[in-house]
């Protein structure tokens, strides 16, 4: 018997890495309890963290990392031309991620700071979606493997996947986690899309917004609350710009 009467097809999946830490790729090799089933449900044709083999064409391209060089642009355009479905995987691919921080600074100074005298070509950071058309964005730093599994299932079934509309706060309450604001800390939970099971606040760290905005982020009220709780404009904006997915104080 098949789920919803749908015969599962095994899509050919390729993973590609651009500017980033490759932590999202690593996440896909995690969640061992269902790893064998995950690898049986799809056909991996490129995944350099688990295999050096590269085989032919693919249906789904999972693209992680931000775009910061011309050769990356060319490589990404070629992937877009080949794949049926292009998925931006992780906050770098979706929003530019921490790499985007450099965009507000002098490129020459940045280049010298990082490469010294061996200056390298480096473009302003762009998300994958700012370079090519993206079919689906899976945010997170790193992505959540259980969420990736659910999304892959929906791609196999051909049913649209809905991300949680609610912000992180709901999951904090539902996991009995104390509000970080109550502990005197800044937290982007009220703005940020849930679905991460609020693991950072549960671990004692206020949210940094890696999953981008929830369905109806109330920025003006959030700014008012954060200011009223004693956080400076600079602290709030540093936090909001960290992953590149949220708006900044006007």
């Amino acid at each position, binding site marked *: *018997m*098949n*789920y919803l009467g749908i015969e*599962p097809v095994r899509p050919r999946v390729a993973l590609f890495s651009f500017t980033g830490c490759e932590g999202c790729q690593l996440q896909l090799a995690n969640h061992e309890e*269902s790893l064998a*089933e*995950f690898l*049986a*449900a799809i056909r991996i044709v490129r995944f350099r963290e688990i295999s050096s083999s590269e085989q032919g064409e693919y249906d789904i391209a999972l693209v992680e990392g931000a775009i910061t060089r011309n050769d990356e642009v060319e490589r990404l355009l070629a992937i877009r031309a080949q794949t049926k479905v292009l998925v931006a995987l992780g906050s770098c691919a979706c929003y530019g991620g921490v790499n985007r921080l450099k965009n507000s600074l002098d490129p020459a100074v940045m280049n010298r700071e990082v490469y010294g005298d061996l200056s390298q070509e480096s473009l302003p950071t762009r998300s994958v979606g700012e370079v090519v058309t993206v079919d689906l964005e899976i945010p997170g730093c790193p992505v959540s493997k259980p969420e990736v*599994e*659910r999304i892959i*299932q929906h791609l196999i079934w051909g049913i649209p996947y*809905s991300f949680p*509309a*609610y*912000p992180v*706060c*709901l999951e904090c*309450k*539902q*996991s*009995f986690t*104390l*509000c970080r*604001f*109550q*502990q*005197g800390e800044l937290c982007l*939970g*009220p703005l940020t899309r849930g679905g991460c099971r609020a693991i950072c606040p549960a671990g004692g760290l206020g949210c940094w917004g890696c999953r981008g905005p*929830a*369905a*109806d982020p*109330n920025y*003006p*009220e*959030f700014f008012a*609350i954060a200011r009223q709780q004693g956080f400076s404009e600079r602290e709030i904006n540093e936090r909001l710009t960290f992953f590149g997915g949220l708006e900044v104080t006007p």
Partner: protein
Amino acid sequence: MLFRIVEKMAFRSLIQLLLETTQVIGPRKIAVTREGKPVHQYLPLSGFEELELGYDTTDIPAKSYFLPYEENLSTWSFIGNDWTQEITYRLQPRVLVGLHACDINALLKLDKVMTREFFPSPYYISRRKNSFIIGIDHEPCQGGFCHWLGTDSVNRGFDLFLTDLGDRYFVAIDSERGFTLLQQVAVRLVTENDTADYLTVRRRIASGFAPPLDVRQLPRLLDMEFDSEIWRRWGAKCLSCGSCAAVCPTCYCYGVSENVSMDFTRGAKVKQLYSCTLKDFAEVAGGHNFRSARETRLKYRYYHQHRGFVEQYDEPKCVGCGRCGRSCLAGINPQEIIGDLLATEVPS
């Protein structure tokens, strides 16, 4: 209802006795806020010393033990061309000790919803019936307004209910199993002296409340104020985070999703408590949303609390515990909203 007196040492023995065989859940201190205020949560106890009956309130209501935030309604699997499912209910009894009147009144309201004649919830009933409830009287908590709603005391819905008389508890008994349990320790009949002390304590508690607002007009006022600017003003502050409904002891709305195994042969129907203030609460097929505006969603939450529920059950859904107001970072709170509807100041 029967009444007995139990010395505090005997009550301690009773809890210790229960702990030997049964899960006992009660208010435990888990943290302090940055203002130095202790934070309590209803949690399983490993010893009597962890039980802090003098607590002010909890962030999370006792609801979570009856309507968990997330639960598996059914676990299913395919077998050849057939399928099978497994459903589990709570089988083991347990004790919840230290519940305030608001949380017990909330359970009485949930009973009305969950144990109706048709489609009662077996999940809820198995937890409710298996929970032995020991309530306790307390001084008015910070930010509570139960006395507006008549939920500052409770006459049903518990097994035992304690009032602290200093060295002893005045115990109201509302079930046979409550009476039977008390036989395990030394109890005595109530004397005139005990009754006098009980009334003194009750008077002291009642005098600790600020004058209440009259909420009896609310169902009518809500109809009159459907287009009021009150909703725009408070709605503009709403973060649509659902915290208010999560910490509400009577909010029971939920969604069900399916969690399918990666080999597509097994799965679970998962129920998650949801909130009417969340953006997609009233979203339907085609992406249409009946309540896409924040102010509309917030308004409907208040309509359910103080109007819709009254129509159905002749009483408000709200018990005045104040948890929603305390949990709201934006400071949206029922006292001020009700004050605005009544066009009056909230007494402090």
